[in-house]
């Protein structure tokens, strides 16, 4: 059997998937690497772009800036999210399910929308700033720059930490805590010596995720950074900026960015490997009822944090109903639906684009994720191990880099995809697929191999086994995962920003453009539409998902 590889369904699937990866990921990335070492004028081989980046403080500083942002965001998100997960799983909290929904909801919008809202609240002309100034004569500290970025990103990303760590805490067996109490370790000591180490694999995974998102985000620094530049901003400016763009230089920065995130990814993998163990609780921890005072603080902390995180979105909803001048630039007193009228009359195709493009991407992602997870879980061989490795590559590629690589690769005669919806779909697939694969691998690992074998022994072909047995059994988990993917897709910005054309503008891009054009009313209305989509998706998710378990 080993001597002649048989061309069954799964061998063909392996080859197709591998081909897709080579064409749509490896090839574009190689294009970037190639462009990064070419002279922008002569086309000769050169390292001058790299030298330029590292020798000029203006550029090099963006790198340290990005690091500062990512590391501080990581630390704050952990400091906010881990205690929240602990309180949520160990104590009785009123409205648990709602609280969880709200926490998830607060993470589900593009960070730049949060940044935009915070500027409206705490910026120079922000609502809260003005209120404090007139009421108390106090000047609120400056929100622009590093502090603002940190505020926005931490509030946006701590829910990720919460979801990961909460998932791990659910799997802590009651007896472990009882045993530690029995041996004299309880309270805070137990939190640090037992609970935290038990959740370490998830904490590390969450830390990586937060780090990657923070370092790759460019909407927030662009919106609120005011001169505090991070490297995704430079990549973007060098590529599509209005003056003095240099594509080769942008490619060089992209290469540097990939290398750096790759290092972090590998460090995280190494730490995770060292800390890896699996838990499965037979007896779940019973949530304690805290003493009245303690209970008060627990509720204050959890609901307070969520309120703070949701505040920007709510404020935008409020603004979207405010009256504006006819061109939508200045808010006037009183309420009106005019922003929505404008959005629905003039930008209807934006909503349709979002559904069309994200829907296409979603279908492709699910199909590919099923195939890839099946290949890597059930058919381990050299070919599929390669696919497994390739499927993780997008983890370390910032969205803006994916965008640029697509333009470089498909701006030619043979595959002229630039400007089409297809290129946006492909970029979304590449970006989102590792996460979906991760969750479908988790689902598939729960289904015993013998089920597939039973189907085969009963005469079902490999393809039929997949369609009739495996997929139906995965369905619940897959569907829940699909909704989460859907939400991330409609809030995607960084690659779409580079790839959209007049015909394929999506909602989030439209929000960004409206903000950039200072048509605030419309921006708010569009952002609210996105939020509405998100809320509806989450409600649907809660209906389907059995235990409300969320896999990002």
């Amino acid at each position: 059997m080993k001597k002649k590889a048989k061309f069954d369904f799964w061998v063909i699937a392996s080859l197709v998937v591998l081909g897709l990866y080579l064409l749509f990921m490896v090839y574009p990335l190689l294009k970037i690497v190639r462009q990064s070492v070419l002279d922008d004028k002569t086309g000769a081989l050169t390292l001058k772009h790299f030298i330029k980046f590292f020798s000029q403080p203006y550029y090099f500083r963006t790198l340290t800036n990005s690091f500062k942002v990512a590391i501080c965001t990581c630390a704050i998100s952990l400091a906010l999210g881990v205690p929240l997960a602990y309180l949520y799983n160990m104590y009785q909290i009123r409205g648990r399910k709602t609280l969880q929904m709200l926490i998830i909801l607060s993470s589900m919008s593009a960070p730049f929308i949060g940044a935009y809202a915070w500027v409206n609240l705490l910026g120079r002309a922000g609502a809260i700033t003005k209120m404090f100034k007139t009421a108390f004569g106090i000047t609120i500290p400056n929100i622009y720059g590093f502090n603002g970025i940190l505020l926005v990103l931490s509030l946006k990303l701590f829910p990720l930490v919460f979801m990961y760590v909460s998932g791990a805490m659910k799997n802590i067996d009651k007896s472990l805590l009882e045993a530690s109490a029995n041996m004299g370790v309880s309270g805070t000591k137990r939190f640090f010596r037992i609970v935290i180490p038990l959740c370490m694999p998830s904490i590390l995974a969450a830390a990586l995720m937060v780090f990657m998102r923070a370092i790759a985000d460019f909407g927030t620094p662009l919106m609120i950074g005011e001169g505090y530049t991070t490297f995704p901003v430079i990549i973007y400016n060098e590529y599509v900026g209005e003056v003095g763009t240099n594509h080769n230089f942008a490619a060089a920065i992209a290469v540097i960015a990939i290398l750096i995130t790759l290092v972090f990814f590998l460090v995280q993998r190494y730490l995770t490997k060292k800390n890896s163990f699996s838990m499965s609780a037979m007896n779940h921890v019973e949530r304690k009822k805290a003493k009245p005072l303690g209970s008060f603080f627990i509720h204050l902390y959890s609901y307070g944090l969520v309120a703070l995180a949701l505040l920007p979105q709510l404020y935008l909803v409020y603004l979207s109903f405010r009256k504006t001048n006819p061109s939508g630039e200045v808010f006037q007193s009183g309420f009106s639906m005019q922003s929505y009228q404008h959005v629905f009359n003039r930008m209807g195709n934006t909503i349709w684009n979002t559904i069309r493009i994200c829907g296409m991407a979603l279908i492709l992602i699910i199909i590919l994720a099923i195939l890839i997870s099946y290949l890597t879980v059930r058919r381990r061989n050299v070919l599929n191990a390669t696919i497994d490795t390739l499927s993780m590559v997008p983890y370390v590629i910032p969205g803006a880099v994916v965008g640029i690589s697509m333009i470089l690769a498909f701006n030619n005669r043979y595959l002229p995809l630039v400007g089409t919806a297809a290129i946006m779909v492909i970029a979304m697939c590449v970006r989102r697929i590792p996460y979906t694969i991760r969750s479908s691998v988790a689902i598939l690992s729960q289904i015993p191999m013998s089920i597939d074998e039973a189907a085969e022994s009963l005469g079902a072909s490999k393809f039929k086994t997949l369609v009739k047995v495996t997929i139906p059994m995965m369905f619940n988990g897959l569907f829940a995962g699909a909704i989460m993917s859907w939400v991330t897709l409609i809030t995607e910005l960084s690659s779409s920003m580079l790839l959209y054309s007049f015909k394929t503008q999506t909602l989030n891009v439209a929000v960004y453009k409206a903000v950039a054009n200072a048509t605030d009313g419309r921006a708010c209305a569009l952002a609210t539409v996105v939020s509405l989509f998100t809320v509806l998706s989450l409600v649907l998710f809660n209906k389907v998902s059995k235990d409300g378990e969320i896999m990002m």
Partner: protein
Amino acid sequence: MDVKITINNAVKKYGDFTAIPDLSLEIQPGEFFTLLGPSGCGKTTLLRMIAGFNSIEGGTFYFGDRLINDLDPSKRNIGMVFQNYAIFPHLTVRKNVAFGLKNKKLPKEEIKAKTEEFMALMKISEYADRLPEKLSGGQQQRVALARALAIEPEVLLMDEPLSNLDAKLRVEMRTVIKEIQNRLGITTVYVTHDQEEAMAVSDRIAVMNLGVIQQIGSPKTLYQRPANQFVATFIGRTNLMEAQIKVEGKEKSIVFDNGYTVKMKNLTDVTDGQKVVVSVRPEELVINSKSETGSLVGKVLYSTFLGLNTHYVVELSNGTRAEIIQESLIDDIIENGTEVYLTVKAEKINVFTDDGEKSLVR
């Protein structure tokens, strides 16, 4: 319908590790054949090679005269029952049973008739429209069996099908399996690590260890005339004792270390003074209250009354322990500490070379 399974020089490797070095086997048409051995002995590996789920690194596998080495599992026409049943949880009992029939593209009426027939055979018709998770372990096992049999396979393969059931159900289900197999006369390969279960259902058993077949035989043969020390200890319980061969003219006997001599009529090629291992099953030792003309001497350590039988553990004069099973008597149980004199039933005991590899009795 019944086919003969022939395996010649099968080899299974996992990377550098050889699980099965060289294995040959013939299973007769309609036979209930069991692969028995401790975990890791290669029995499930071999079964999965027959089923087509494991690659074959060497040798040939035949169903009848059809070579199946490279045949896809779905085309081998096998019925397989898995340790965890592997029932499709999203399909009702009826759809589970009909699954294989649908793949055969039979006419609808025939599928329906066969499904009903096999559900009735396995007595699960009343659950036909339930989902499997609503069924007990025993019922799930019946569904798995009905599903495997419904396609009327040439070969039925069962991988430890009873190990997830509780003790009582296990005994009940093995009777069901045996009866159904008898009725349908289908060639069956059964894998288990439970020797009692193997004895109860099998026509023949292959005892395996480290990927090598130690002995193939009927349950009776394996128990009474094990081919080597491994089989003797794996099947049933036994006491191993060191002894020496004495040959005087035509008379051959074994001499235990305290001088107790037993005349043997069935010893094969042995030499005077040869060291041997004697395997004496607990029921092959007889307790005598007073010294006979030569016997093993020991002291009762403790006894266990089990109704039909009483077990004694006796420490022999050389310090080793022996287990004895005696039919319970109406008299008192022998007190701990009592000195007893043990003799063996010469026609029943087994004698092995001192490395335990070869039997020296006929």
